[in-house]
């Protein structure tokens, strides 16, 4: 079975700085892969490479065996990969509903106006924002805006979603709610999820596998428990005890 999404020795530098160095990853259909690492480890760069916001300097990224390197972000979205942004990017002046209707009309779903509305309402219901659909998006709380990001990614009709710190800055209760929302969406739409998260407990809880990045290198990948016990990972996070 070929992987749904594969990264082959992907590298990216900014000037002299190697943000990512030969990172490889195979993600199969329906999997939840967590990505962890300190600030500057290259997590968001990895997402930007997959989503087409950045082009890798080396390596290849394959979706169902076909390279997607060099495609523009909108083409990649229409192929079924949607991302959220760490710093939320709502269509601030539009309503919550309009914010989700637009991706339903333009993403891989490419629905007509009526169907898009139905998709948008369903996505808003899943993330618990349906009651706020007529509010202006910029008036939502941070938690609300993070959920809006999630609803927009799902509404594109994507089968792979890249979630960039959708829980950062949320309270413990909100984190628990967000985890439930992601699980619900995954079940309902059979999503494959790549998730970057600093909230370690949440990441370990939701991921089936975890990739650890350190200074642009993939230093560990595997089941959460195994990764958490990996000496290389421990050395990175707690310093070398030797």
């Amino acid at each position, binding site marked *: 079975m070929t992987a749904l999404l594969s990264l082959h020795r992907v590298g990216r530098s900014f000037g002299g700085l190697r943000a990512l160095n030969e990172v490889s990853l195979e993600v199969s259909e329906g999997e939840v892969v967590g990505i962890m690492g300190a600030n500057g480890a290259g997590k968001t760069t990895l997402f930007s490479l997959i*989503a087409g*916001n950045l082009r890798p300097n080396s390596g290849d990224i394959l979706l169902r065996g076909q390279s997607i390197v060099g495609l*523009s*972000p*909108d*083409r990649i*979205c*229409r192929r079924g990969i*949607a*991302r959220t*942004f760490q710093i939320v*990017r*709502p*269509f*601030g*002046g*539009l*309503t919550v509903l309009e914010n989700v*209707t*637009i*991706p339903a*009309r*333009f*993403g*891989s779903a*490419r629905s007509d*106006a009526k169907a898009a509305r139905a998709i948008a309402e369903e996505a808003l219901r899943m993330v618990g924002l349906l009651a706020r659909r*007529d*509010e*202006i998006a910029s*008036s939502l709380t941070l938690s609300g805006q993070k959920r809006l990001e999630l609803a*927009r990614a799902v509404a*594109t009709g994507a089968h792979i979603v890249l979630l960039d710190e959708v829980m950062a800055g949320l309270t413990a209760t909100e984190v628990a709610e967000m985890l439930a929302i992601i699980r619900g969406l995954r079940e309902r739409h059979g999503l494959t999820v790549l998730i970057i998260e600093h909230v370690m407990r949440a990441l370990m809880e939701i991921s089936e596998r975890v990739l650890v990045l350190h200074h642009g290198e993939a230093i560990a990948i595997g089941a959460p428990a195994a990764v958490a016990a990996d000496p290389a990972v421990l050395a990175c996070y707690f310093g070398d005890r030797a």
Partner: protein
Amino acid sequence: MNVARAAPSAALVAAMLALPFVGSEYAVAIGFELLMWIALTQSWTVLSGMTGYISLGHAVFYGLGAYFVVLTYGTVPLWLSLPLAGLLNLLFATAVSLPVLRVRGPYFVILTFGLSELVKYVVLAVEAALGEFGRMVFGVPGVIALYWIMLALAVAATVLVELVRRTRFGQGLLAIREEETAAEAMGIPVVRYKMLAYGLSAIIPGMVGGVMALRTTYFEPQAAFDPIVSFTILTMAIIGGSDDARGPVLGTAFLTLLSELLWARAPEIYLIILGVALIAFVLLLPQGICGWLFPPRRPAT
């Protein structure tokens, strides 16, 4: 909502249709001016109102259209040369859009302004090299005939804005205005959409320029590419509001009629009054007359 909105538009078009039959020569001249600015400002809205890329260089399309129609006058019939002037602008805008649309915000404003000035000086140089210092046009259609053409252009520009606003394309443009990176991440082909908006916004100004050259029976680059045209379009859009096709109509009417009144009664200070009015609008009515008269129907939080 449709009847409530269609009725005033129909009444306005009917009034403009009746004007040449009932109005004085002066009234027709004012009506002509109004229609010209409506056509220009509505076209500008397709790009700048919808995507938030503020063009301060729409005079370039006006000037190129005027130049083309004057050059071909007498050889190409008007019914053909006017649409060709529109087409020429569509091609020109599409050709320059790729570099121009790479920048946003204030950089885009400056770049569009610079482009317009650049083309003006190129045309000046070409004309000087040809030994031409202003071209006269002879045997032009009468004022009333040109009035009908301008009315058609104003209606066409208004219909264009309304159509674009209702389509998927229009929704995509709005998303680009609100958050371009997010728009792109959601599958909106931002580059293609911006190019198309730029091209569409250039067509009618080109035709307007052609009609104006015939109205003034004279072509001179400094006047045809006058940056005042670009500034006035922007001013009218700000005063009227550009979130709604009614905005440019209201802004145009307000500014044109106010200038006429002031120019006749207070010629020494009329520009000062206009300047103060513009500042007052930006400060007090940032959504324009239209946004103030018809606030967007949105429930409060």
